[in-house]
């Protein structure tokens, strides 16, 4: 008897808000169908710490710091196909509204000069990833195979795109499921 190998899928949130993952969970009882078709590798929903060899990597959030870039490159190296999920991954999203401000001024204001800070100091421990000068969408750093826009994409849009991918098609969204907001 031939059993079809399950698709191995990793997911992560970079400069994201986890809203795309929540929207992913909004496919509700389709999740039961989905676990028949895929198994999860590294994901905020599993305990796996390092991404393994996967068929598909799903990434929400843009790139705002060095660790984001590191993880994105790891996903690109380990996943056959990469999906940019949501507005942030697709075009930087609302976090990219910081791009017209000077990074030093933002950090100064948040950690140093704002009223109510006891001993204002910009965090400088090497444990912390350094922020990038600007926020970038994923495709400016690695090749992205598919883009699913939306802030977040609806559960319906994510389910449609995933079923397209599992069936070996390029994901397509139409009127009602294609949204940028």
């Amino acid at each position: 008897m031939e059993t079809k190998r399950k698709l191995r899928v990793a997911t992560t949130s970079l400069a994201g808000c986890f809203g795309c993952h929540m929207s992913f969970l909004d496919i509700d009882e389709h999740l039961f169908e989905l676990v028949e078709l895929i198994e999860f590798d590294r994901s905020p929903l599993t305990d796996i710490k390092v991404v393994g060899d996967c068929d598909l990597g799903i990434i929400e959030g843009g790139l705002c710091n060095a660790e984001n870039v590191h993880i994105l490159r790891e996903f690109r190296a380990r996943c056959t196909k990469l999906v940019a999920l949501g507005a942030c991954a697709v075009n930087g999203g609302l976090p990219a509204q910081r791009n017209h401000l000077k990074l030093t001024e933002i950090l100064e204001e948040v950690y140093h000069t704002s009223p109510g800070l006891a001993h204002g100091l910009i965090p400088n421990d090497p444990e912390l990833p350094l922020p990038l000068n600007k926020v970038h969408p994923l495709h400016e750093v690695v090749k992205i195979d598919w883009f699913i826009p939306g802030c977040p994409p609806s559960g319906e849009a994510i389910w449609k795109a995933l079923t397209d991918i599992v069936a070996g098609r390029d994901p397509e969204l139409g009127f009602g499921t294609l949204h940028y907001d």
Partner: protein
Amino acid sequence: MSATFTLDGKEVPFRDGQTIIQAAQEQGAWIPHLCYHPEFKPHGSCKLCTVTVNGRHMASCTTQATAGQVVESNTEALNDERRTLLQMLFVEGNHFCPSCEKSGNCKLQATAYELGMMTPHFDHFYPSRPVDASHPEILLDFNRCILCSLCVRASRDVDKKFVFALSGRGIGTKLIVNAASGRLADTNVAMDDKALEVCPVGVILRKRHGFAVPIGERTYDKAPISECPDYSPLPAKEEA
């Protein structure tokens, strides 16, 4: 009204002096467009209305209809090119739809939906043009401007006020306000000016009017832009 041309294989009648897009719209045929508006002289800047006329690429908003033309519009090749034009417009500005008050009522966004744009594809420019919030009732966010010049034309031709203008060259071209100070508050703009209602994107906004329409009820939530006869070919003043 006996002369006709064909649009995607269908006969389209036209009157002398009509452009291809005018004749097409009168028959209810949608040709994608952003800078074209039937109440104004064509501008020819967005290039989305590009069709092939007897095999050659032409802007249907500036090309006069003549008898026997073979016009193609809804082809995969032309829609591919239109998608690329849309992607260029999206990366040249800051089109963060999730926080834009025009989302759902925006022609740029709705046209991109219609043409199935999944990603802006190119590297982003992230322009940094300060907003003009000087006017008590009107906000200008120049980072969303697609330089269609509809506000320029409306202010000049209908309002007779010359409040807006395009200035600069190349990628430095931008919308400016015609006042010595450059501020909207220092113009004679008025709330019932035509210029305020023609912006197809989220540049010219009425203050304290954002997010008034529930999601699902906005213009392009209810029907795709190709099915929204937003501009009647005859002068009418229905605007969402």
